[in-house]
């Protein structure tokens, strides 16, 4: 059964896929050059040997592809398997299998397997996933990928980071990602929300106090700066910090020193600061609520997280992420969302950003009795307002496969909701357009408001 035809050899050797053939005893009769390259084996060392002994595939014992083809009479395609590389490492491959027949009697003479390595392909997929799920932060949009890239670029820096973004955009998660990628990732990571402490207590929380420093200070207590020594301190809602505490914070940033409240001993600390706010910090500076010098100390590496309405391409990824999350939490197997529901979520403006999206998915999840989220399960507020106040279509986001809903809306808005002109541009009749508008529940928002 040996392949002696030199043309056949040339053809098989020209392929990028690995190919080997076996006779009816499952001895290897041919191995092409790509297979040699993938497996590290030389043809001369494997010819005549049993394929099971050479490749030690996980499929040999129970699911030999050639046996499957023999049993079913159908060729196999794109089956995953592992084989052994000459160096002892397991390779993940995807293979196709078929039978070699005697042309006259149609009796099987052997089998042929073609395969390609997918280990490196999977590595590539993992890299893509890593950028879409950056240390727990889900984002596929250009803006988010730029943020992830920036975080990686500054990972070996101790410079302060200042994160700005609307409420619910995931500032704390970005801070977490910065800490996880930093040189201080194995050191203490302390978080303080500056808005939750009364003015007089925030300084004590940050710098600590001694017994008797103020009413209620019944014993010495170290502050967050001491706890975070050699590590990272995340100051959330930093714009809420009272001015006198801002001065103390500025000193820590400039000199690395502070005193506990009620004590005169100067202490030294080595802490990296990540600060965040959802306020317009420039406005806070102008109105004197935030010190400009502190801002410049904190704002060495500025990060601005765009609101969700400006990056709708992240919404499907976030939805998928939350579906997976709640499937585990609620022990439900819901990993799908119907198109109409997705369309609605895509055109809602998300004033509460990712937090609001998460709540919406959790709401639908709690109500869902099937294995798919359908439109009526979404929160009434979103169902009502998505059509009335649709999110403006971003002009800067990367091109996506435009859905029909979005395309209809874009063209209608372009023509000020003139259906005749819109229908003409869309290449459909007015009746068809009307039917589609009805099906999608698309109405002119200006008319609705009236």
């Amino acid at each position, binding site marked *: 059964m040996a392949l002696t035809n030199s043309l056949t050899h040339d053809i098989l050797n020209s392929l990028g896929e690995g190919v080997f053939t076996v006779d*009816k*005893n*499952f001895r290897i009769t041919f191995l092409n050059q790509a297979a040699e390259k993938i497996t590290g084996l030389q043809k001369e060392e494997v010819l005549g040997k*049993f394929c*099971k*002994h050479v490749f030690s595939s996980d499929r*040999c*014992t*129970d699911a*030999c592809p*050639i*046996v499957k083809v*023999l*049993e079913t009479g159908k060729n196999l395609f794109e089956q995953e398997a592992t084989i052994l590389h000459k160096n002892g490492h397991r390779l993940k491959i995807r293979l196709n299998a078929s039978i070699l027949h005697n042309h006259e009697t149609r*009796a*099987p003479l*052997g*089998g042929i397997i073609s395969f390609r390595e997918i280990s490196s392909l999977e590595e590539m997929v993992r890299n893509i996933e890593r950028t879409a799920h950056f240390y727990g932060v889900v984002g596929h949009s250009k803006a988010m990928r730029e943020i992830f890239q920036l975080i990686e670029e500054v990972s070996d820096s101790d410079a302060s980071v200042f994160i700005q973004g609307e409420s619910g955009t995931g500032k704390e998660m970005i801070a977490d990602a910065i800490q996880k990628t930093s040189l201080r990732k194995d050191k203490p990571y302390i978080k303080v929300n500056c808005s939750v402490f009364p003015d007089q207590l925030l300084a004590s929380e940050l710098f600590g106090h001694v017994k008797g420093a103020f009413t209620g200070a019944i014993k010495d207590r170290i502050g967050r700066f001491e706890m975070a020594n050699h590590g990272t301190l995340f100051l959330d809602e930093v714009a809420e910090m009272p001015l006198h505490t801002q001065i103390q914070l500025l000193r820590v940033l400039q000199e690395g020193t502070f005193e506990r409240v009620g004590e005169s001993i100067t202490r030294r600390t080595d802490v990296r600061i990540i600060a965040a706010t959802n306020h317009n910090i420039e406005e806070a500076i102008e109105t004197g609520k935030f010190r400009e010098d502190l801002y410049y100390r904190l704002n060495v590496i500025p990060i601005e997280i765009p609101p969700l309405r400006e990056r709708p391409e992240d919404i499907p990824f976030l939805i998928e992420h939350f579906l997976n999350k709640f499937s585990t939490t609620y022990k439900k197997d819901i990993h799908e969302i119907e198109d109409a529901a997705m369309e609605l979520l895509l055109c809602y403006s998300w004033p509460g950003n990712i937090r609001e999206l998460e709540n919406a998915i959790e709401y639908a999840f709690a109500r869902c009795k099937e294995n798919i989220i359908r439109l009526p399960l979404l929160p009434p507020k979103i169902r009502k307002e998505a059509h009335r106040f649709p999110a403006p279509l971003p002009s800067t986001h990367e091109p996506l496969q435009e859905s029909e809903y979005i395309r209809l809306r874009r063209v209608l808005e372009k023509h000020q909701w003139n259906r005749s002109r819109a229908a003409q541009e869309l290449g459909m009749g007015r009746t068809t357009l009307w039917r589609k508008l009805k099906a999608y529940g698309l109405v002119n928002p200006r008319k609705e408001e009236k």
Partner: protein
Amino acid sequence: MFEMLGNQFFLVRNYPRAAVMLEKALLRDPQNKLIRRKLIICYTQIGEVQKAFDIFLSLIKEDVDFIINTDPVDDDCPCPELVYNMESRIPENLSSLDFHLVAGMLWLYCDLHRSIEFFRSAHELAPSNPRIKAALAILENRSRKSSPSSEKMQ
């Protein structure tokens, strides 16, 4: 197709499925010695001792060297391992006679003299069995003819 399937099941030591396929293949090609040589082993492993012995006797009558010349490595013959396992722990489902028959058959793939020893024991256990007597005669005859250097694993 049956032979090829039988070969693969034999290769992965799935003796019950190999036996089914090789039986079907043998129906189409009753004189195929390769199939018969494998089927003997399969039958011994699924407790079909008499079926194994039937084929064994017919094959050694026809060509005793076909079994003797089996190469444990090149032919991927499992017999060295099988006889080792059998002798370390005698299978409970086999009678004493069947045990000696199975051991005698399997040893022929590896060592003629050990095979003869087991067939002699089997003959002592069933002196009136003409088929055992015939098999023993063939093996002893073959042993007398062979020079020590032509035999394996001695």
